[in-house]
């Protein structure tokens, strides 16, 4: 019984709730069990499972509220077209994503999803059409994007330096963000020795290390096991709750009920 509230609160924080709110909810939940003179473990079940259940139940109403209270436009694509010589990869793409919204880009392989994301990131220019985008953006590529021989901490330092963050702050921010994904980087392991799922978590942390307003994710959960996969979507919801805009390229369709916009690029060209 004594441990249940602590585990409950820890899981709430991990799921993206603000620490004060998690603390309040924990106190209330313990009191609720007390009303029935019951042990929380018997009354609600295992702490981490009830935490997830509660957050999921509460997300339902936040989803509806967020639609009304969405923030300012973080990304606007109008008539974006991309041609490589004779080959047209994208035609007339329109998309508006506001803070607190999640957009999914779906479609068969080869239909231009990654190209569109790269255009949003600024790595490629559109052939025609306009792009308006907030300045602070984070990019999480499909794979690669890390230096195999460096450790996770060194990556935090490196990416932090790129954003003008002091090394120590970058490392502590990185460690904190990693803990939200249930990952504790050990000091000395080079990244190439990490499992695929862990490397993707590193990629997520590196993408958001500098606190961007817009996150661009390219199918980052391909190497995920089931647990990590669920963690990824919780992270997306946490970003959304924090008022950030998220764009995810994916070919997996079963999480789309959590998403505000779906952009279907259709079949392969």
């Amino acid at each position, binding site marked *: 019984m004594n441990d249940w509230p602590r585990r409950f609160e820890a899981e709430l924080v991990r799921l993206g709730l603000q620490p004060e709110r998690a603390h309040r909810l924990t106190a209330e939940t313990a009191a609720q069990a007390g009303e029935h003179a019951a042990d929380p473990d018997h009354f609600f079940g295992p702490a981490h499972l009830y935490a997830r259940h509660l957050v999921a139940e509460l997300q339902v109403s936040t989803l509806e509220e967020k639609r009304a209270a969405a923030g*300012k*436009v*973080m*990304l*606007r694509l109008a008539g974006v077209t991309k041609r490589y010589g004779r080959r047209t990869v994208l035609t007339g793409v329109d998309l508006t994503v506001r803070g607190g919204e999640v957009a999914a880009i779906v479609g068969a392989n080869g239909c231009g999803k990654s190209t569109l994301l790269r*255009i949003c*990131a*600024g*790595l*490629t*220019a559109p052939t025609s059409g306009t*792009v*308006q*985008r*907030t*300045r602070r*953006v*984070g*990019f999480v*590529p499909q794979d*690669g*994007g*890390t*230096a*195999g*021989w*460096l450790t996770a901490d*060194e990556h935090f*330092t*490196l*990416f932090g*330096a*790129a*954003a*003008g963050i002091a*090394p120590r702050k970058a490392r502590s921010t990185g460690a904190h963000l990693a803990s939200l994904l249930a990952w504790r980087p050990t000091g000395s392991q*080079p990244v190439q020795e990490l499992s695929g799922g862990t490397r993707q978590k590193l990629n997520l942390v*590196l*993408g958001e*290390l*500098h606190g961007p307003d817009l996150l661009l994710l390219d199918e980052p959960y391909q190497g995920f096991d089931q647990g990590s996969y669920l963690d990824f979507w919780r992270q997306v919801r946490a970003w959304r709750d924090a008022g950030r805009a998220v764009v995810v390229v994916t070919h997996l369709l079963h999480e789309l009920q959590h998403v505000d916009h779906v952009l279907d690029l259709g079949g392969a060209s």
Partner: protein
Amino acid sequence: MTAALVVAGLSAREVSRRRTALLLVISLPLWFYLVRRDLTGQSTRMLAIGIGWAVSTLTLFVVNAARGVDPRLRISGASVAGVIGGRLIAMSGFGLLLAGGYFLLVAVDQHIERAWAVALLMMLTALIAAPFGSLVGALLPRELEGALALLSVCAVQMLADPAGSIAKFLPFWSAREIGTYAVDGAAADLLWRGLAHAVVVWILCTGLTLVIFARRLRLERYPEPEDH
């Protein structure tokens, strides 16, 4: 500038973990030197070119390995100069260390009139090699092609007649010129020519590297969205 220094430091750390590659690269100039040890002039020049090859090859690999990371660093806010400059600083530093070590070897093992000039030529070669390797890496994105290109350049450099026209277009020509001045007691003329050549090659290689990467790592500047 701090970003460049952090990139430099981490680049150096990254390279230092590749023990085997590092060992091979560091020891190659030694073989070049030993093969011609009896002839002071030849051995010194071979050593220098060996150092040039070692540093430029290592830089080539470092630059290519960073292809995945660099665009992300740019998106996080780094400048092209910070990212590329940082790597060049690291590899130049490594080159200077290598040159320093080998200079000690030569100074002890051989008797040279103008030992300081030998130190100079080895240092210059190391300093040129980093941007040269970086340039080759920028132009030839696949490692095998890049390594072969470097090998060809160094081979031709060693075999070509320094007085001939081909040699002057090769990056490490300064090593041979200043080497002749240092070992064979030639006129100061060669020293200045070698120095000038080294400076020009360095500027050319560094400049071209930055231009190519500025283009490749270019980020589109999009305006902030108007809210409506």
